[in-house]
């Protein structure tokens, strides 16, 4: 395997560069996926069929907690990659575990939020609005959940194998994914929650 030592470890081999570019393209596809969900959401947001509206069911407190948790986790994963570039394996693992714990807490609050929605009569089947609301939030939530397992596997690999071009590459790609989910959340927060509560 040819290595280029002038570049960070995650970019150091040809294969690594390919994987990073490929993942960026994948994120492009993910943007289209969420764009379709958002477009559908904006189409159906007013179609509540006499059921609950956004203003009626959204609660600012859990949403703010979720936002805080996810934004912080994006910061810590960035610190993790910084530590990785400095070659500090333990610090990196620490930051990654912090990220995953914050993600887990996010999922916990989101589950609480979903239970609350069902409790106040805004289930998946209630109206077109609730269907697309829960589908959009759920798609993001499933992404975070998958990310939790993926991140855990990567932490285990870094821990066992150390910082190699392969593990560094995987960690870096994971951080791209995690930042991406954060950006999607910012859109959800602004255009679903804040706009809905206005």
């Amino acid at each position, binding site marked *: 395997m040819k290595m280029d030592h002038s570049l960070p470890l995650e970019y150091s081999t040809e294969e690594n560069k390919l994987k990073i570019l490929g993942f960026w393209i994948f994120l492009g596809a993910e943007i289209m*996926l969420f764009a379709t969900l958002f477009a559908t959401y904006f189409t159906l947001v007013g179609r509540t069929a006499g059921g609950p509206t956004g203003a009626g069911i959204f609660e600012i407190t859990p949403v703010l907690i979720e936002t805080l948790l996810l934004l912080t986790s994006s910061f810590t994963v960035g610190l993790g990659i910084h530590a990785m570039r400095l070659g500090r394996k333990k610090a990196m693992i620490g930051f990654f575990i912090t990220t995953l714990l914050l993600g887990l807490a996010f999922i916990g609050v989101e589950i609480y939020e979903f239970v609350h929605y069902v409790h106040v009569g805004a289930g998946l089947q209630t109206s077109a609005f609730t269907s697309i609301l829960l589908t959009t939030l759920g798609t993001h939530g499933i992404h975070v959940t998958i990310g939790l397992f993926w991140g855990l596997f990567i932490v285990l690999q870094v821990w066992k194998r150390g910082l190699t071009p392969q593990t560094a590459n995987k960690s870096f790609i994971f951080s791209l994914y995690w930042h991406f989910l954060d950006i999607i959340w910012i859109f959800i927060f602004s255009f679903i929650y804040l706009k809905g509560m206005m």
Partner: protein
Amino acid sequence: MDFFERFAVPHPSFAIYASMVAIGLTVVAVLAGLTYFKKWGYLWREWLTTVDHKRIGIMYLISALLMLFRGGVDAIMMRAQLSAPDLKLLDAQHYNEIFTTHGIVMILFMAMPFIMFFMNFVIPLQIGARDVAFPRLNALSFWLFFMGAMLFNISFIIGGSPDAGWTSYFPLAGNEFSTSVGTNYYMIAIQIAGIGTLMTGINFITTILKMRAPGMTLLKMPMFTWSAFIANVIIVFAFPVLAVLLAMGTLDRQFGTNFFTMDNGGMDMLWANIFWVWGHPEVYILILPAFGLYSEIISTFARRNLYGYKSMVGSMVLISLLSFLVWAHHFFTMGQGALTNSIFSITTMAIAVPTGVKIFNWLLTLRKGKIVITTPMLYSLLFIPLFTLGGVTGVMLAMSAADYQYHNTMFLVAHFHNVIIPGVVFAMLAGLTYYWPKMFGFMLNERIGKWTAWLLSIGFILSFMPMYITGLDGQARRMFTYSESTGFGPLNMVSFIGAGIMAIGFVLIVYNIYYSTRYASRNISNDPWDARTLEWATHTPVPEYNFAITPQVNSIEAFWDMKKKGHVIFKGEYEKIHMPNNSGIPFIMSCIFFVWGFSFVFSLWIPVIVTTIGIFVCMALRSFENDHGRYISVEEIEETETRLRGA
């Protein structure tokens, strides 16, 4: 017994039971044959686990040809049913099922894998690469496509075919009007195949951007590579839309959500809108690589360089942008208002401009060329006038006011077959004939090939030109019969005869493959067509590493310039070559996906959960796997090269 009743066909007939027996017997025969000839190990090692782009390409080709015949049988049945007024060969329900599966099979399970075959087989060779960027992902893409296609195809013997049209519009596709599991099959099978296609898109964009031979700048790429690159960009932008759409359809049908329902705020036309936001770019995913193939073939057999290279590229980029801006022209009659219709009319007509540029470029390539009429060239020459006719009727349909007359008539059916058959199918057959020697080391028979091209063209004209007339007279599409007083009878009989002639053409292709396999000379050069691009610069059959020495390119037609101007493209010594290892995970994971899909169709939630876990376990195994590939040594390369040069 109650458990098994759900698998019964809701609307059976003798033909369906006969197909069940035939499919059962074929499966038994294949399994028995593999066991008797002790081919299981060979199949597993050389094909099921392969990550070689050439072999994956050939598997796409085999699937596409199989599906061509499945979709073709559907077509013949429809034409037979309509050949005379008030026929009772098929009833309304069977006719619905057949036009639905014909559309899906031909577009997603025939044309798409055919395109994938060309991209897989040709692109790494054309850009001078060893393989695609992610060989393992490529295998997964193929197997997901394959399992999706198989899942779709078993629908008609287990649980019932989808019957709401290939567009599957709601509310017709909802539970109320489509009560069988057929539409569930539609949602799940296409979802599985679509994931595979999306990954192909990512894979090939990366490959083309990053793995070109040294010196091959973007504007020195061969035209087929350009067309495939743009098609893959469209795939990456369009297929996630389809994924979301199918997921919402599944939720509506199986989880009681209200996206496309008629009450609780649902919006049925939302399906049509999102469907065509994917669906219209999809047809350009098919036609652009076809254009690319025509460009290669026309320039090869006009014996001159392609006219207007940059305008070819520019027009394809423009087509790809416009393709996302025209979706509402599929339902001008929905009632979205004159302003919206006008905007979509204009964007639609605008597509004719870049397409026209391409047509003129091909014509100007032919001008002053020394034209050699081979089978691939014959297809290309037939393509130009026939496709132009389809394009012109497309502009007619684009006029939203006039569309109220054409909408949902046979005129539309005639139009899209008129662009797809001469545009895509002829390109596939031309390309197949063109690349056949590179794949298998012998040429297809030219005489039979030309007969086929003529039969298909004449059959095509007889089949589809009458539909323009009956369509303008008001014959609706998707109607299983008509009365004698409509006067549609004679023209539909002409269509049926045309379909029969086309069927003979397709059978001749099979005969040609058989005939040429037996009798064609194996003593052909690496470059039997005197072609111009890099894929012809390596040996036939292509060694697994493609090029012993990575080519160095400094012109668009690198291989031609090597032959005629003495450019040296293979410089330096052999070095050891890094290759990926085979893997069983893509195949196994896709099999699990098949079971997942099947269970999902029938709402069997326990197997769904188990297989979902299985899929994630496969992904986890891949994550923890430590596989750095293998090296082919210099001695091995020398040995292979000497052997291939001697042959």
